[in-house]
């Protein structure tokens, strides 16, 4: 039987059990969020034993070489001694510079890192409420244009971290971050390629960053952004996006509402359905999908079947489900 050593204790790994589930079952304080290998909150390091390749997917090479792995998707065949990364991969402190509601449920959070953080717009950071409770938030800011890190945090009912951000966090307070990670960002090159962006809710956060990054870097091909919410009140940054559409003739913004009759200037229907109505051929197009995991997964398959190459599809499913709740 495979055994996991953590701290002073050693636990037997159950059949088909992940290292994360095993440790959490025994009350070890390992942070996690998505439980599916996306958010990287459950990052650990193997001090002894070699973690399987599948548990290192999406990690930087430098981390892979040091035997870092994602505990939630780690099913080792050999015994492992695992440790949390904080000694080696320390989190960085940041001061809350501003908190402004973007609409009734989404908060704009500006953070000033004590040491400058190198990142690409659209990547995400992990923000920790306590050392064992962290969640991922995408970066809506662009390093060359914005002084601070910008997040758009949607408040979820009883959300442990989003609720805390909305209700308890104050300007001037210091928080801990780790990151950046993720590969959903604008890669310069092929400036004439058409870009289609589809987002729901706070899935606009990475898209807003990627969009401004692409425009700033002189992307010349058409860029279309479909942002959807159930109601008009759930849309945000509409003024800013309309201004960008006026300023850049190659950029087109389509705000969509699916749960009520659309007011003038809004499209009626879900964002991805609108997108697939207007764009039918995805051959040679670059695609960014962010937000609700079902939307992201459905849109991915549909765009692929409509001709998009897998390497041209960038996606961040936000994975907010009850299963993610500790």
């Amino acid at each position, binding site marked *: 039987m495979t055994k996991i050593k953590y701290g002073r204790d050693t636990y037997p790994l159950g059949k088909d059990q992940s290292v994360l589930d095993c440790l959490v079952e025994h009350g070890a304080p390992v942070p996690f969020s998505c439980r599916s290998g996306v958010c990287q909150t459950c990052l650990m390091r193997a001090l002894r034993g070699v973690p399987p390749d599948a548990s290192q997917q999406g990690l930087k090479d430098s981390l892979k070489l040091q035997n870092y792995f994602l505990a939630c998707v780690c099913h080792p065949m050999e015994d492992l001694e695992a440790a949390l990364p904080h000694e080696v991969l320390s989190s960085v402190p940041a001061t809350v510079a501003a908190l402004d509601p973007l609409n009734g449920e989404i908060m704009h959070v500006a953070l000033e890192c004590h040491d400058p953080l190198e990142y690409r717009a659209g990547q995400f950071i992990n923000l920790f409420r306590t050392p064992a409770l962290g969640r991922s938030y995408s970066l809506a800011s662009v390093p060359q244009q914005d002084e601070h890190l910008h997040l758009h945090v949607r408040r979820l009912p009883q959300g442990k971290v989003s609720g805390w951000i909305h209700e308890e966090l104050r300007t001037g307070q210091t928080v801990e971050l780790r990151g950046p990670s993720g590969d959903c960002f604008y890669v310069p090159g092929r400036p004439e390629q058409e870009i289609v962006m589809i987002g729901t809710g706070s899935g606009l956060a990475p898209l807003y960053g990627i969009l401004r990054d692409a425009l700033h870097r002189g992307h010349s091909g058409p860029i279309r952004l479909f942002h959807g919410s159930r109601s008009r009140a759930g849309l945000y940054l509409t003024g800013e996006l309309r201004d960008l559409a006026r300023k850049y003739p190659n950029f087109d913004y389509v705000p969509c509402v699916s749960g009520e009759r659309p007011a003038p200037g809004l499209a009626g229907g879900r964002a991805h359905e609108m997108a697939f109505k207007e764009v039918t051929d995805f051959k040679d197009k670059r695609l960014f999908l962010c937000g609700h995991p079902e939307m992201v997964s459905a849109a991915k398959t549909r765009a*692929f079947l409509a001709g998009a190459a*897998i390497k041209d599809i960038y996606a961040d499913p936000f994975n907010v489900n009850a299963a993610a709740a500790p």
Partner: protein
Amino acid sequence: MTDKKLADWWTESHASLYAKLGGEAAVNAAVDIFYRKVLADPRINRFFEGVDMEKQAAKQKAFLTMAFGGPHNYTGMDMRRGHAHLVQQGLNDTHFDAVMEHLGATMKELNVPGELIAQAAAIAESTRNDVLGR
């Protein structure tokens, strides 16, 4: 042929097929076309419902690498284990045939000469019993 010679012949002939087809670049060119055909085929796409597209594409790439005679880590046992849950859901020869059809059509679309298509098909065919758990 002795066992040793047979093994050498197998490795050499298949390595050269992989090289003739263009190695990894050929696999990369083929994987999107192939996987798109598979996903769009109503005879078999139910086996792919709910699976993560990226992970599945990686598996399709591994399959094509093997079919093209390239380096791969599959053993008969992995093939059996990897498909056991699908066999339970009714995976059978007709589905295997459909995949073979898409493999051939993909290579045709990439203008691969018929003789090389036949070689790749023979390699893929050799996994049939393992995939179907027989």
